[in-house]
């Protein structure tokens, strides 16, 4: 079916519709990874966005249940250059078209995705709408979409109730990790479990005290969609968790929330970082990690109170802050995705570090008491 993608700036490109035959719109972002479309589509951080894949062939290996990052397809729509109509991979259970159709998510193929990418790169992230009919009408619909920062995306993707992760760690004495779920990826939970954590997910609106009352040995601040400035309550929660001095580890949105809790700002990048090839330098060692990234917002280094926190990782491409650490406390976060999925697994050490800090926390009686006291008072 002939359809179009229309951007709010008036740009219109034709394509062929597949997936669900429905119109849809959202903030358009491009992802430069050459593998991992399934992980991206099921990553809650993409909620409400229109994802453009720059790789020319998408759908080649079908859909594999084990590679789902959540139970749903999150983007509002998907745009590709060439789409594989059939699936051949021996282990695949389903095809991209089928999964999108079932999820009610439309997709557009045969689009000049490079032209679209260049437009976003040069003009910045913008809203777009895909559908059939009069292209000018689609442009107007794109312009009428609510800006991303006006929507509380986190509440749409967080767990509705407190729940334990479906996987249990092997071994004795697992570390109790509370996840502040803003739309967490399954592979983050799995990495934690692999490191010996028992993981409990808390809805994003859970007060800090309620989380602390479960006596976690570490709290994980998850990734998630939307503008971090949109969530002052989450920032307060993180501030309280910081005060409790429980080990804290944040990824992506979790990193932005931690920064804001420390008093830093967040700004919107022109077109974000979405890909699996982003070089990040770990300042302590000088070593570079190739990372998986997916964010539109960033923490300006100069807004970070230098007496409270220091920058630990920076992007080699644009020097933006990719990681920070609270001074004198086991609390840190990264802007990129050390859990990979999709992308390189160069940064898995961060999970090990989190576990080491929880071990120290466990060994160190006094903060443990403090935590209990805090829990009692809460």
């Amino acid at each position: 079916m002939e359809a179009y993608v229309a951007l709010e700036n008036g740009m219109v490109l034709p394509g062929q519709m597949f997936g669900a035959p429905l119109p849809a719109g959202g903030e358009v972002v491009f992802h430069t990874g050459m593998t991992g479309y399934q992980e991206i589509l099921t990553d809650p951080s993409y909620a409400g966005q229109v994802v453009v894949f720059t790789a020319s062939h998408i759908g080649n290996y079908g859909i594999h249940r084990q590679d789902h990052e959540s139970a749903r397809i999150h983007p509002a729509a998907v745009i590709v250059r060439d789409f594989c109509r059939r699936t051949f991979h021996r282990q695949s259970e389903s095809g991209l078209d089928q999964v999108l159709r079932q999820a009610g998510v439309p997709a557009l193929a045969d689009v000049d995705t490079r032209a679209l990418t260049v437009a976003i790169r040069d003009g910045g992230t913008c809203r777009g709408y895909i559908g059939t009919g009069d292209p000018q009408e689609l442009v107007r619909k794109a312009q009428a979409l609510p800006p991303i920062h006006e929507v509380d995306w986190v509440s749409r993707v967080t767990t509705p109730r407190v729940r334990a992760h479906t996987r249990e760690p092997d071994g004795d004495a697992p570390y109790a990790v509370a996840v502040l779920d803003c739309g967490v990826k399954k592979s983050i939970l799995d990495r934690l479990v692999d490191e010996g954590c028992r993981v409990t997910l808390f809805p994003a609106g859970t007060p800090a005290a309620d989380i602390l009352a479960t006596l976690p040995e570490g709290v994980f601040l998850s990734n998630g969609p939307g503008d971090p400035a949109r969530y002052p309550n989450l920032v307060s929660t993180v501030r309280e968790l910081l005060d409790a001095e429980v080990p804290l580890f944040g990824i992506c949105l979790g990193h932005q929330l931690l920064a804001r809790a420390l008093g830093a700002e967040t700004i919107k990048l022109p077109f974000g970082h979405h890909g699996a090839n982003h070089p990040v330098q770990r300042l302590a060692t000088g070593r570079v990690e190739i990372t998986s990234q997916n964010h539109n917002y960033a923490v300006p280094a100069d807004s970070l109170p230098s007496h409270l926190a220091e920058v630990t990782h920076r992007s080699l491409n644009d020097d933006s802050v990719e990681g920070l650490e609270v001074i004198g406390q086991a609390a840190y976060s990264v802007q990129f995705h050390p859990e990979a999925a999709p992308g390189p697994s160069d940064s898995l050490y961060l999970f090990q570090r989190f576990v080491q800090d929880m071990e120290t926390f466990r060994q160190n009686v006094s903060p443990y008491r403090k935590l209990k006291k805090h829990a009692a008072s809460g």
Partner: protein
Amino acid sequence: MPRRADLHTILVLGSGPIVIGQASEFDYSGTQAVKALKQEGYRVVLVNSNPATIMTDQDQADVTYIEPLTVEMLERIILAEKPDAVLPTVGGQTGLNLAVELAETGVLDRYGVELIGATVESVQLAEDRQRFKDTMTSIGLETPCSFLVSSLDQAEQALEAITFPMILRASFTLGGAGSGIARNRGEFLTMLREGLAASPVGTVLVEESVLGWKEFELEVIRDRVGNGIVVCSIENFDAMGVHTGDSITVAPAQTLTDRQYQKLRDQALQVLDAVGVVTGGSNVQFALDPDSDRVTVIEMNPRVSRSSALASKATGYPIAKIAALLAVGYTLPELPNEITGCSSACFEPSIDYTVVKVPRWSFEKFPGTPDSLGTSMQSVGEVMAMGRTFREALQKAMRSLELGFDGWESMASGRSLAQLKKDLANPNQNRLTDLHEAFRRGLMPEQLHRLTGIDPWFLDNLARLMEIEGRLRGFTLSELPDELLREAKREGFSDRRIARLLPWAPEPAHDFSPRQVLDRRTVLVHAARQASNLHPIFRRVDTCAAEFASETPYLFSTWETGPCESRPTDRSKIMVLGGGPNRIGQGIEFDTCCCHAVQAIRQAGLEAILVNCNPETVSTDYDLSDRLYFEPLRFEEVMHIVATEQPRGVIVTLGGQTPLNLARQLDQAGVPLLGTGVEAIDRAEDRDRCGELLGQLGIASPRHGSAHSLDQALVTAAHIGYPVMVRPSYVLGGRAMRVVYEPDELRLYFEEAVKVSGEHPVLIDQFLEDAVEFDVDAVCDGREVLIGGIMQHIEEAGIHSGDSFAVLPPYKCTAEQIDLMRRHTTRIARALKVIGLLNIQFALHEGTLHVLEINPRASRTVPFLEKATGQDLACIATRCMLGFSLAEQGVVEALPSGHTFVKGPVFPFRRFPRTDHLLGPEMKSTGEVMGIGRNFGEAFARAHLAAGQALPAAGTVFLSVNDRDKDELLPIARELSDLGYHLLATGGTARFLEGQGVPAAVVAKVGEGSPHIGQAIRDGEVQMVINTPLGKQSRYDESAIRREARALDIPCITTLSGGRAAVDGIKAMREGMAGVVSLQELRARG
């Protein structure tokens, strides 16, 4: 930390002559490395024996040696230049092997030279199969399971551990004897018995078969602090079992999930760590079982490679350059990504297009060799194509191959379906066209997957092309819907291919040839497309899928509507058309000429636009030209570039036959061609017109005629007089050429020639027996002529000029004869109004100078002459084409340097063990070396040494010549005997020599008792062979002798003039070889 300040002089090792498996990609890599190190302020000393390379250009390295790549020569160079370090990793396996030898012989320690970019340990570890396997096991990675078996009892252990099919390889046998695939116990036991018997050490390696698994390659770079990146993933279209150099490959990998890909990525980085690669680029190959997800490591190369050159061209990431900088101490994060100019080199390229590489083979040159692809590489070149989709790229690759394809297609072969299936199941060079035929005949992707092991994703994409083909067949041009035309173009269908697919009304009876009809239809398709406003745009190769703006002008065409990224300037531009895929007869020499032209154009203040489709070349380095178009060298594509760039002129005479074939069409389309006119080219290339020209000038040439039938041929040959040279028309590189001595032979051979020639007549020329051949290269500005050099061939006329040793200056002819060649050349150049390069082949026959061939274009010998004389002929020629006369340029003929330069050919016979190694009018060599000496003998000996066939300083020489040659053999034999060599000969020759008082021992012919000559050679009792062809009856015997000799790299000389030259060479060696001399030093002295 910046670059190392403790290093000052770095010795870079080149890879030597072009051979199968080690071709011009190492000139690309080496040139990048030299350039990068020089820019860093190091004094760079380069050594390579191959004069056809860009890296040996005098202005590349600070000091350039064209010397044999042996430890002895390197030691002399090290002694003279006192380098602080040696960089071996851009010189292929040759470079690495030399590095190990330099270390093992203590040369490095002796002179305090450091190895950079690799360690001896890591090179050895990567090469030693067992140690590599053990290392992989120790870090938890899998390799194919294997056992070394020396008895039937031990075999049980292997049988328990490995499932069928399994591969058996008898140890230390040549050419794969005693090896094969066992599919069941019965086959296994039979093959094992045979293998144990065949193996001189009585062992057989029994290995798990990964045939049919998917094959992947990762190109990895690592720096000294441990940062590692994967530059590119490459997926083989062909399943495991076909050497990766012979596989059609695709980048990026297409059929892996992220989980699978990351597993390969992690393992690749682990492999580098385990092998101990401290810095630089490496290539790691994997096999993946599509059923179980099991991954095994196949091998790794701790150096830049053919694949890394491909990866560099595919992504835009300059691997060799970065590897060189890492070797001198930089770390990845310290280096910028030069393509974007705004991001870091420490990242992994992302590409938003698909790259397809298709190899090109020359099986027809090696009769007796089955067209079957296996674990030994046989292709002689390759093309790469880029498109937004795999389908578009594949069609472009097919067009780039220059095998007459207009896209993915096939001719009806008339094979039975069963035969077709059999051919598909056994990979051969026609696999893409066979797949096309299979689809046309209704086979389904699933069936084809089972037959070929090719991943269904690729086959499904082929099926999609086939589907569009089917739809195109359903419309005449006037009914063809716009959308279908648009879709077909987007899917890579060329105008010509579309013209062939559409149904057309029957042509009215007239005189047009099928080709003319097709040309006319193509024009109509083109017009329809123009009317629908359908044209391609150009996209940039930017390493980052458009995430960052790129200023680097590296472009490919695609059929999309978005903005065109070519961004041509309004400056005055000259476009150079490159040479396309390497093949025997057209290789690196032409690329070198094109690169020089680009340099000359830029020096003249103009913009240079380069078009080529060969990823192995320096010309396709984005650094070279102002804009690089990586496109098929076909009329349609070239015209699109011309339309975009509007060049002031196009150069077609430097890239060999490929661009020349486009000349007439481009000229007719109104494209301004620079240099010698199309008319003059035609006059030189058309035999009759050329004969006429020579007649007018009063210059002799061999008598010639042509024939359509045997009867005609016999009459023509009788008229000309035997011997005659018989060859098909319209073929390149002397294909199917033969010298025929008598009518019976002509009867025998004519049929074959007709087959190759098709509807064209078979050409019959007078064969100038025992003539001495010369090659003259010259530059003409339309009026004045500059002689670039006159080379004398060492072999007689009848051996293809590309396969002959040649010497500059001529060593056996008179000043009058040389003067006559000059005058002839000048007159011919003026008569043809040549502007640019001109090559003429002369033959001196019974005192008369004949012109054999006139080529008004760059020739294979131009780079050799440039190195020997220091005169950059291709640059001078380019300036002539730009309108600068020779006088304006102020160039005069180079003075003799006082040295002698010998060009030596290098042959791929080892790869084709079943073919005869005899030389003839059909070119078979893949590359060349240059030997420099104070006299002919020394230069000849050095050329032999450089070609890997060192002349022996002592020992036994086997002589076997035909009766015609016996008298001439005598002085050679006598001198060898006087020099202390033992002579060995078969009965007739031995008796003749004894009769003349030259002692010679008798040895039996092959098959005439034991020990025979074949065994003697194999046992190392012979150090040199002089064997001229004896005639048909003993062919088998001789070819066996030549084969044995080649297998042991024993010089095997098949002409008496070669034998005489060898004696001169040996005498020179005995007197002591001179020291090494750099090109720069030669020039300074000259």
